[in-house]
C-alpha cells in the first residue's frame, strides 16, 4: 500500500531524507523510529503530500503522489505531530469541513461524527470552539477527523503526544482494530514501548538514512542482541550507524 523509492529531501543546507526506500503492506502497522532530527517528520510530511520531495517516488495505494496527489490523499488519514487546527471552528464544524473535503457521504456523516466524538470523549465539547480545547483534546479531534472518511492508509506522526493514559490505551486499540480490517498504518514515534506493542515491523532512521528495518526479532538479530528490549536495539543500531 505504501512504497517509497529512493526518496530524498534536500533542504539546501541539510539532507533530511536520503534515498529512502521501503514498502508497507495492507493491514500492516509500520513503526518509524529514530533520534531527534533523523528525518521522521520530513518523511511523514512527504508521504502526506505536505512537502514535495527533491527526488524519488511515493506510491500510495498504487498511485504516484507526484502525478495524482488528490486521489492519493483521498486514501490517507493524516495525523501531524503538532495539533494546529482552525481555532475559530467548533469540533463538529471542523469534522463537517473535513467530511466535505474528503467527500464523506452526507447521510452517514452525522452518525459517524457522533460515534467518533463519543469514542474520543469529545461529544460534550462538540459545539465548543477549538480554541477552548486542551492539547490532548485537539490531538483526539485530529485523530477522529483522520478516521472520518475510513482511510485505507493512516499516517501518524507521534500519535500519543498529549494524550492521557486512557486515551493512549484507546488509540492503541483503535489502531489494532483498523489494522485487523486491512488498514495500513505508518507511525512515527519516539515512544519505543508503543512501537514495540503495536508495530508488525519497525524501520530505524538516522540522519535521513534507513539503518535497519524488520520485525522486532529481526532487528535484534541485526543488532546482534539476544533477548533485548527495543530500546537496547535502537541504541546499538544508532551507535554503529552502518547496518544497511
Amino acid at each position, binding site marked *: 500500500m505504501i512504497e517509497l523509492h529512493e526518496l530524498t529531501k534536500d533542504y539546501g543546507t541539510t539532507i533530511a531524507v536520503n534515498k529512502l526506500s521501503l514498502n508497507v503492506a495492507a493491514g500492516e502497522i509500520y513503526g518509524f523510529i529514530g533520534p531527534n532530527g533523523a528525518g521522521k517528520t520530513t518523511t511523514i510530511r512527504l508521504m502526506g*503530500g505536505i512537502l514535495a520531495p527533491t527526488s524519488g517516488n511515493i506510491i500510495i495505494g498504487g498511485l504516484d503522489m507526484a502525478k495524482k496527489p488528490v486521489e492519493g490523499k483521498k486514501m490517507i488519514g493524516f495525523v501531524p505531530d503538532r495539533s494546529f487546527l482552525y481555532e475559530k471552528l467548533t469540533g463538529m464544524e471542523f469534522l463537517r469541513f473535513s467530511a466535505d473535503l474528503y467527500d464523506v457521504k452526507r447521510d452517514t456523516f452525522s452518525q459517524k461524527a457522533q460515534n467518533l466524538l463519543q469514542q474520543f470523549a469529545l461529544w460534550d465539547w462538540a459545539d465548543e470552539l477549538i480554541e477552548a480545547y486542551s492539547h490532548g483534546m485537539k490531538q483526539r479531534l485530529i485523530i477522529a477527523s483522520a478516521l472520518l472518511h475510513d482511510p485505507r492508509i493512516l499516517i501518524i506522526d507521534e500519535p500519543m503526544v498529549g494524550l492521557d493514559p486512557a486515551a493512549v490505551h484507546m488509540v492503541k486499540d483503535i489502531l489494532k482494530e483498523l489494522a485487523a480490517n486491512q488498514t495500513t498504518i505508518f507511525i512515527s514515534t519516539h515512544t519505543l514501548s508503543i512501537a514495540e506493542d503495536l508495530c508488525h515491523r519497525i524501520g530505524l532512521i538516522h540522519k535521513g538514512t534507513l539503518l535497519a528495518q524488520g520485525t522486532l526479532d529481526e532487528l535484534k538479530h541485526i543488532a546482534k542482541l539476544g533477548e533485548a528490549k527495543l530500546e537496547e536495539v535502537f541504541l546499538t543500531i544508532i551507535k554503529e550507524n552502518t547496518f544497511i
Partner: protein
Amino acid sequence: MNTILSLLRPRILSAINSLRTDNKRNSWMRIFMYGAIGIVFWTGTFIIFYRVLFYFQSVQDFGSILAMKLMSMLIMTFFMLLLFSNIINCLSHLYLSQDLPLLYSMPVSSKDIFISRWLISTFDSSWMIVAFSLPVFLSYGLIYKAGIIFYVMFLVAIIFMCLIAAALSGILVLFGAIILPAGRIRTILIILGVIMVLILILVLRLTRPEQLVNPDSFASVVLYLNSMQTPNSPLLPTTWITDAIKAALNGEVKSCLLNIALAGTCAFMLIFISSITAQAAYFMGFSKSQTTPQRLFAPIKYKGFSWESLLNFLPRESKAFAVKEIRTFFRDSAQWPQLFLMAALIAIYLYNFSVLPLDNTPIKAIYLQNLFSFLNIGLAAFVLTAIAARFVFPAVSMEGEAFWIVQAAPVSTKNFLWIKFFLYDLPLIILEEVLVVVSNFLLQVSPFMMVLSTITIFCFVPAIVGMAIGLGAVYADFKSENPAQVVTSFGGFLFMVLCFCLIAFVIILEAGPVYYIFMANLRGQNISLLQIIWSTVSFCFAFFLCLLAIFYPMYLGEKKLRIR
C-alpha cells in the same frame, strides 16, 4: 536594569540575526528597497511642507498664523496616531505575544517584563512617526531660519510626546485587561475600533472641509482669524509640546524650557505611574488573558434555516472552504474593528461626494462631474487595494499553522487558491460597484461615464483580488504571530506597488479615449476612425492587463505553495 536589558536582548539579537539568515542577498535587497522608498517619502514630505510653509510666509500676517495652526494640528494628529498605535502595540506585546508564558516561567518580576515590553512597544509605535516628523520640522526650521537650539528642543519635545503617549497607552491597556472579562483582551480592539469610527465621524463633521470653498459661510475674516488663533487647553500635553516647539522656533528660550519641563515631568510621572500599576496589575491581567475565552456572542439559530444553505449552489469542497472562511473570519474579533473602520471610511468617501460644492466653482459643472467620475474609478480602485491589502492578501497566511490540513486534504493547491479568489472576489465586486454607482449618482454623471466606471471596476476587482491571493501565496507566512500583519512585509509592499502600477496604467490607457468620446458626445460630433482604433486598442490593452493581473500571480502562488 540588567534584567530589563536581558529581556530586551532576544529582540535585539533577532533583529541582528535576521540580517544573517541564509538569504542574505534577499534581506539586504529588502532593506535597500524599504530604505529607498523611505527616502523618497521623506524627501517628498520635506518638499511639500517646505513649499507650503514658503507660500504661507508670502502671505503677510495671516501666513504665520496659518503655519502655527498647521503645526498644532500636526502635533495633535501625531499624538493621536501615537496613542492609537501604542495601544495596539501594547496589547500585542503585553498580552498576546507567544513568548510571554516562557518569560513568566522565569525568575523575573512582572514589572521588569512590563518595562521591557513597554520599551519595545514604544519603539515600534514611535519610530516611524518620529522619522516622518523630522522633514516637517526641518522645513519649519529652514523657513523660520531657526538656530540649532530649535532642532535640539524639537527632538526633546517629540521624544517626550512619544513617551507620554506610550505611558498613557500602557496605563489604559493595564486597566483594560483587569476590567474586561477573562480571555477577552482582544475585545479591547473592538472597542477601540468603534471609538476610532466615532472620532473619525466627529472630526469629519466638525471640520466641514466643504465650507472652505464656500465664501458665503464666512461671516467675516476677523471671525475666521479669531477661530484660527484660539489657544488650546493649557492642560493638554500636546499644548506644551506645540508651545515648546513654537517658542524654540521664535527663539524664546525660557518659554520653551518651561513647556519642555512640563512635558518631561508629565512623561516621567506617567511612566512611574504605569510601572507602579504594572507591579500591581500586570500579572493579574496576563493571567486572565491566558484563560479560555468565552464566546462573545452565542450563535443564533432559526428553526429550519441555516445561512450555510445559501451556499448550496457551490461544489461541496468549495462550500466547505467558504463556510470555514466565513466562520473563522467573523469569529475572529481582531477583524471586527477593521471592518468598522472600513465601513466608516466608505461612508466618509460617499459623504465627500455628496457635499462637493460643484455649483460654486468657476469650472463648468458637467466637466467637473465627469472628471471626478473618471478619477473616482482610480480612487475606488485605491480603496479596493486598501481593503484587499488588509483582508485578501493575508487570506492564505491566515491558514497559519493549520495549513497542513489544506496540504493533506484531497484538494489541489490550484483549487484551494481559486476558491479563496472567488470567496473574496464576489463580495468585493458588489461593494465596489455600489461604491462607484452611488458616487456617480451623487455626481449626476453622463450614462457613458456610468457604464465605463462600472465596467472598469468590474475588471479591477478580480485583477486586484487575483494579485492579492497570488502574491499572498507567494509571500505566505504561516508562522506569523499575527498573520494579518503580513501585509506590512515585503510581499505586501510589492502587492501595493503593483496594484498602484496597474491602476495607473489602466487609468492612463483609458484617459485619452474617454476624453475624445466624452467631448464628442458633448459637442454632438462623431469620433474619427483613428480615435476609434486608438480607443479600441487602449481598452483591449487595459483589459489584457487586468487578465494578466489575475492569472499570472495566481499561477505563481500555486507554484510557490506546491513546491514548499
